[in-house]
């Protein structure tokens, strides 16, 4: 008989202690990290707001719903463009963090702005590829033709991408500042604006105090504009140039913010500690 056989048999007690050990490893993270605590509430609360306002709209406009539902697919495709455009940027940065490649990159002559321009290009290419597939599937399976929007499609898509870029750059800057604690933002900072950007329902559903928030978001004009074009066939030019100006402003601010965070990372030695 081997010596192992003399050992006590595995008891439930041992098993529970090991489960507790793994649980403990995760619980240790929470008291130190507000972002992790926020993460627990983040997704469910935002989901609730989006579905809550949509329900509100349906209840208020029982007749509007059949007409309106035709645009849900368009809203979803458009939303995805914004969301993916943000994600592509912040995930590209995180990939450098995960592969511990940041020092290699930033000890080369690469400038931070050049790094951002590369991730923006990547995000655009990814999005066009994914967009082509979803637009085709929406047409093939659900007879939803995004090209019904005609030439409006271009400024719409460009504005959504630009807003995704701005949010993505801000996200990246926040990760640069707060490190892995802020990784959750990479996956879902754009989601934070979804309830207010009139994606699935018009701005008019929102309570008065949220309307200024909605009107400050470029995406709001695009989603409202999309429905207007699909319904009426034309569009007030305001719906294009206001978000374009807003996006220009936000992109500029995002670059500035990134520059500040990069500089601060160089002061506090964060660039060298990220991913370690």
């Amino acid at each position, binding site marked *: 008989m081997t010596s192992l056989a003399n050992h006590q048999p595995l008891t439930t007690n041992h098993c529970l202690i090991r489960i507790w050990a793994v649980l403990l490893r995760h619980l240790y993270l929470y008291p130190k990290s507000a972002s992790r605590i926020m993460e627990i509430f983040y997704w469910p609360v935002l989901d609730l707001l989006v579905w809550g306002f949509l329900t509100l709209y349906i209840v208020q406009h029982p007749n509007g719903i059949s007409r309106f539902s035709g645009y849900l697919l368009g809203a979803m495709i458009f939303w995805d463009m914004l969301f993916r455009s943000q994600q592509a940027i912040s995930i590209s940065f995180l*990939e*450098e963090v995960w*592969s*511990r*490649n940041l*020092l*290699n*990159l*930033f*000890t*080369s*002559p*690469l*400038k931070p702005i050049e790094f951002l321009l590369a991730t923006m290009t990547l995000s655009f290419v990814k999005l066009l590829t994914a967009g082509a597939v979803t637009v085709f599937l929406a047409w093939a399976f659900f007879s939803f033709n995004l090209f019904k929007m005609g030439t409006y499609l271009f400024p719409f898509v460009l504005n959504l991408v630009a807003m995704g870029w701005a949010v993505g750059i801000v996200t990246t800057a926040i990760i640069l500042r707060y490190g892995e604690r802020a990784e959750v933002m990479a996956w879902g900072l754009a989601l934070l604006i979804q309830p207010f950007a009139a994606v699935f329902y018009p701005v008019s559903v929102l309570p008065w105090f949220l309307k200024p928030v909605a009107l400050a978001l470029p995406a709001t004009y695009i989603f409202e504009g999309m429905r207007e074009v699909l319904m009426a066939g034309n569009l007030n030019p305001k719906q294009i140039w206001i978000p374009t100006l807003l996006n220009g402003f936000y992109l500029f601010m995002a670059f500035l913010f990134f520059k500040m965070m990069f*500089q601060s990372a*160089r*002061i*506090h*030695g964060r*660039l*060298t500690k990220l991913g*370690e």
Partner: protein
Amino acid sequence: MADLIVRVQDLTKKFENTVAVDNISLEIGSGEIVGLLGPNGAGKTTLIHMLLGILLPSQGSIQIFGLDLASHREEILAHANFSSAYVMMPMSLSPWQNLNVFAKLYNIPHSGEKIEWALKKMEIWDLKDRATRGLSSGQISRLNLAKAILNDPELLLLDEPTASMDPDIADKTRRILKEIQKEHRMTILYTSHNMAEVETMAERVFFLNKGKIVAEGSPKELQNKFNQGTLEEVFLKIART
């Protein structure tokens, strides 16, 4: 001294509650191999990161190739390079793909030939198409070094470059580095905890302790000055006082 490559004046780096580098001044001439020694936490990595511009000094100035680092970062970095045992490269790319990316970043003409040269020099040419993930840590260190020599740097900063190499490969690597250094008249500043290595490589050594330079000279000079038989004993003496 020949042309000055690095000139550091009154350099200090404070973090929230540590002074990592404390009022250091030093000069390194063209073609020198200089060792940076000191116990854990002495400030070696901090100094190297400041020389690379990824960490900003709290006080003091850095000139490289006669240019101010604060205002000529990109120009300087185009002619310098860096490797550390503690950085990696994207693991899903092959060594060749990884080096190709860096060849573009450093704007290297005839990059194909140069990559081949660097991989062959570091004796990992036969691994060039594998996923980097599959390389051992010593092989990854050599890939990092291949990256570091890709742009024929005039200044090479190495942070424990041989830390994960076996004695045979570490020895080969030292010989290769010396060879390239001679061919290109490269200036090398590097840190190591391997005193025997420093004795064979470095013509001059800076000893750092708690952020300050506490001794400087050739390995032989230091042994005489501290009355010790080996550099290792000099190290122990300095670190323990």
